[in-house]
C-alpha cells in the first residue's frame, strides 16, 4: 500500500511536471511552400535585387500646408520630480499634449511617407541642398529638453548641448546613442539612420526627461508650432503623396478627423493619398476631437 501511494504521488508529479509554461502554438508551416520559397531564395541576394516600388516620376513641385487644431484646449499639467532640485525644481511639465492659441496642437510630426528614391531633382527640390548638413541644436535646460519634438534629416549633424550646471546623459535608443553631456558642453552626431516614426530621447540621470526625435532621409517633414501650423514646401508634384501624422500621445493619428470641414477616416496616421499639380498649394485645416488625447 505504501509503495502504491508513493507511486501515485510520483505519478502526479510526473503528470504535472511537464512544461512550466504553455504558450499558444505557432501555426504549422506548409512544407511545399517553404520549399518553393527556399528555391526562389536559392541564388541569395545577388539573384533578387532591391524592390522597385515607386514607378511614377514627379513633375514639378507643390506645397502642402495647414493647421491642426483640437476641438477644445487641453490643460497643461505637471508632475513632481525628485532629483537635483536646485536645478530641476520640484515640478516638471507634462508635454505629451500641448495646445496653443486657437487650440492649435503643437509638436505634431507631419511627414511624407513615400519612398523618395533620390536626393536630386525631380524628387528633392534644389533649395534643400543648402540645409542638407546644417547643424541642428538640441539643448536641455532646467532638466527639460528644449525641443520636445525635433525632426531633422539623417544627413544633418545633431548637436546635443547641456545648458544646465549639472550633468545630463542623452540616450537615443534608436540610434544606439547614449552619452554623458557634462554641464555646459556638447556632443555632435550624425544620425544617418532614418526612422519610420519618432523615437524617444531620454536622460537616465533624470528619468522624467523625455523628448522625441524624428530623422528622415528626405526633407519633407514638419513639426507643428504652437498654432498647430505646418508646411511641407516643394514636395514632388504628380505623384501620389502619402502623408502621415504622428502625435506623442496618440502616436499615428487614427480614426475620425475633419479636414476642411469634411469627415475623413485615417488609419495609422495616413491621410488619403493626394496628387498635386506643379505649382499647387494645398491647404489643410485639420480638426481633431480632443477626446483622442484624453
Amino acid at each position, binding site marked *: 500500500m505504501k509503495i502504491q501511494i508513493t507511486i501515485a504521488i510520483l505519478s502526479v508529479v510526473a503528470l504535472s511536471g511537464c512544461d512550466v509554461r504553455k504558450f499558444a502554438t505557432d501555426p504549422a508551416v506548409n512544407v511545399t511552400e*517553404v520549399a518553393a520559397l527556399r528555391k526562389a531564395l536559392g541564388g541569395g541576394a545577388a539573384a533578387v535585387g532591391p524592390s522597385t516600388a515607386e514607378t511614377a516620376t514627379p513633375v514639378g513641385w507643390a506645397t502642402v500646408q495647414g493647421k491642426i487644431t483640437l476641438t477644445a484646449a487641453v490643460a497643461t499639467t505637471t508632475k513632481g520630480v525628485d532629483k537635483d532640485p536646485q536645478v530641476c525644481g520640484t515640478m516638471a511639465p507634462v508635454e505629451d499634449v500641448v495646445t496653443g492659441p486657437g487650440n492649435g496642437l503643437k509638436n505634431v510630426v507631419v511627414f511624407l511617407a513615400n519612398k523618395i528614391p533620390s536626393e536630386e531633382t525631380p524628387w528633392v527640390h534644389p533649395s534643400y541642398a543648402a540645409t542638407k548638413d546644417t547643424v541642428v541644436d538640441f539643448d536641455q535646460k532646467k532638466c527639460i529638453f528644449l525641443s520636445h519634438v525635433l525632426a531633422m534629416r539623417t544627413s544633418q549633424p545633431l548637436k546635443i548641448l547641456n545648458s544646465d550646471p549639472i550633468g545630463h546623459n542623452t540616450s537615443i535608443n534608436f540610434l*544606439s546613442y547614449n552619452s*554623458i553631456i557634462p554641464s555646459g558642453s556638447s556632443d555632435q552626431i550624425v544620425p544617418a539612420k532614418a526612422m519610420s516614426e519618432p523615437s524617444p530621447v531620454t536622460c537616465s540621470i533624470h528619468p522624467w526627461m523625455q523628448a522625441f526625435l524624428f530623422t528622415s532621409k528626405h526633407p519633407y517633414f514638419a513639426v507643428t508650432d504652437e498654432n498647430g501650423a505646418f508646411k511641407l514646401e516643394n514636395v514632388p508634384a504628380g505623384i501620389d503623396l502619402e502623408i502621415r501624422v504622428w502625435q506623442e500621445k496618440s502616436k499615428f493619428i487614427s480614426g475620425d478627423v475633419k479636414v476642411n470641414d469634411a469627415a475623413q477616416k485615417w488609419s495609422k496616421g495616413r491621410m488619403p493619398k493626394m496628387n498635386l499639380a506643379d505649382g499647387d498649394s494645398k491647404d489643410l485645416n485639420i480638426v481633431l476631437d480632443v477626446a483622442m488625447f484624453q
Partner: protein
Amino acid sequence: MFRNLGLLASVVGLGVFAIGCDAPVANFRLNRAFERKMEIANLGDEKAHLSTQQVQDVAEILTALFGTPDDPNMPAVEGVDVAKVADPYLLKIAAGKVGSDQNGVAHGLYREHCVHCHGISGDGAGPTAYFLNPYPRDYRPGIYKFKSTKKGAKPTHDDLMKTLKNGIAGTAMPSFALLDDQELDALAAYVRYLSIRGEVERKIWTYATADLENDPEKNEFPRLFEVTDDQDKLKEQLAPYVEMVNEVVANWVAPEPVAIAAPKKELQVQDVESIARGRALFYGQIANCVSCHGESGLGDGQRDFYDDWSGEWVEKGKPQLTAEYVALGVMPPRNLIPRNLRLGVYRGGHRPIDLYWRITNGIEGAQMPAAPMKAADAGPEVKGLTPSDVWDLINYVRAMPYEALSQPPAQQSPVAKENL
C-alpha cells in the same frame, strides 16, 4: 474504488514518467510577443491581430531563410562572405541533436550546453530561465552588452569567445573553457545566427503590420507572398525579406573594436594618487557615476530603470499589455539595478581593459552611458575625460571593494588626506 483509482493513476503516471516530457520535434518559436507589440503599434486598433495565414507566412519565410534547429541555413548575401559570420559547417555541429559523428566531433553543442537557459530560439526563455537572476540573454534583438565595439556595433568574434571562455561573473553563465576552440567557434557562430534570425524576424513583423495594406475593419489581411510557379515573380515578392537579411547581416560583418589609449604608466593597484583622482571623478559632475551607482557605490542610485530586453515589454500605465506579452512567452520584466561596485565582481570582465571599454563605450542594452571623452592634451575648459582620467577612474573602481563603507563618503578615504 479508491484503490483502483490509485492504481489507474499509477499506471498512467508511470507511463508518462517513462516516456518523459520531451518535445517531439525541435522548432523555432515565433516571437509572438513582438508580433503583438507591432500589431498594437501599427494596425491602428489595439484589438486587431494579423491573420493566421499571415503568421504562417512569417514562419514560412523564416524557415525558408534560416531553416530549422535541426537543419540551420544561413542565407546568402550579395557581396558578403556569410561563412565569416556563420560558417555552415560550424552551424551544423552547433545545431541538431546531441551526439557525435564517426570522427568523434561533437554535434548538437547548443542543445547540450546552452538551450536549457537560452531556449531553442535563443529567446533567453529556456526552462531554467525562470529560476535565474539576471535572466539569460535573449539573442533575438541582436544586442550585446559585453563587447569591445562602439555602441550600436555588434560584438566581435573575440568578444563572444571571451564570454564563452570566461563565463559572466555574478550570473549563471558559466565558463565553457573546457570545450575546444572549434566547438566554441561553433557556438559563437550559432549565437550570431540566432541573433540574425531574430533581428530579421523582428523586421518581418514590423513590415507585416506596418507596410502591408491590412484593413482590420474589413477583415482584409493580404498574404506576405503569393506562391506562384513564376520564379521571377516569386523572387520579386521576396525582395523585401532579402533586403532585411542584407541589412542585418551587414552589421555582423567584421565589427571593429575600439582602440584603447594605453595608460601613461602601468596601472598600479597601489597608486594612491591615481585612486584619489579617480574618486573625485567618480563623485564629480562630468563622469557622474554617482547618479546611478549611488553615493555608496552599492548600485542604489537609480533602481527603477529597465534594460532594453525588459523595457520593451513595459509601457507606462499599461500593465495589462505587459501581462499579455508575458503570456506570449517573454520573461516577466525586471528592473535594471546598477552594478554594486563594492563587490569587486565585474560581469563584462575584471581586466582594466574591460572596464575601459565599459566606461568609454557605455553598455549597450543597459542604461550605462558612454563617458564624454576629450583629447589627452585638452585643457580643463573642455569638459570631458582624458584617457588618463579614465585610467584613474578604473583604478578607483578597482579599489572600491577595499574602501571602508562604515564612514560617510565625505570622510572616508583609502588614501592619506594630503593626497586628496
